[in-house]
């Protein structure tokens, strides 16, 4: 079984992350997938993981490492900002 995860990186005080939380929850319910939320400003391990995937995430974010951002460990695909469920579906590689 693959250990690759679908991850979304968030910040505790990031407003867009807060707004996105119900959409991500709805998406997980609808498609039966797990997206692991990792907070980056209060957990250095999570911050370092975001930095590890930084090149792809920065490209998706327009240059900076930012939150909310999404990383698919299986495909290397990244999303950034206020995404829709349709975009999440493509990112999560769901048929």
């Amino acid at each position, binding site marked *: 079984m693959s250990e690759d995860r679908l991850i979304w990186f968030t910040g*505790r005080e990031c407003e867009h992350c807060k707004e996105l939380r119900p959409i991500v929850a709805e998406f997980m319910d609808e498609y039966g997938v797990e997206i692991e939320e990792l907070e980056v400003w209060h957990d250095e391990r999570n911050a370092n993981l975001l930095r590890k995937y930084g090149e792809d995430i920065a490209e998706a974010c327009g240059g900076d*490492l*930012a939150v909310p951002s999404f990383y698919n460990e299986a495909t290397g695909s990244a999303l950034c900002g206020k995404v829709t469920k349709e975009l999440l579906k493509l990112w999560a590689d769901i048929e």
Partner: protein
Amino acid sequence: MKAGAWGEKLVWRCHICNDLHFGVEAPEVCPTCRARNAYVRVDTAEALALLGEPAGELNDVGKVISSWKVFCQGSDFGLTRNDEAVANLAKGVLENMRNHGLKYCPCRLTTMDREKDLLLICPCNFKAQRTWEEKGECWCGLFVRREK
């Protein structure tokens, strides 16, 4: 320290009132005592010693928001009208100050490259961001273009 395209920034002291300035050049007129051509270079350690006891610290949410409001005065941008969001973001920059040493943007992340990370201090140069061009707001949605 190098400051991007602007060259080497130095610390300057007004020899009349001890106002401090950090920049490539000294101001022609001291903004504190209005003396002209009054600045002399000082060492960073000397400047820090001159600062002495902390004064006017922005160490709570209300003070941070107040500094942002002053910053917006007379500009084509203001704070979002979502007061709850403003307070939450102010809390975020204070958390980052306490945990990471500077008031970094709570919606981005440091790279560990100091030069790059200095560009993340809130308020940042948000008009250079894609979100300003596309939506008229900073990445966090804190500073927004004023409606005409």
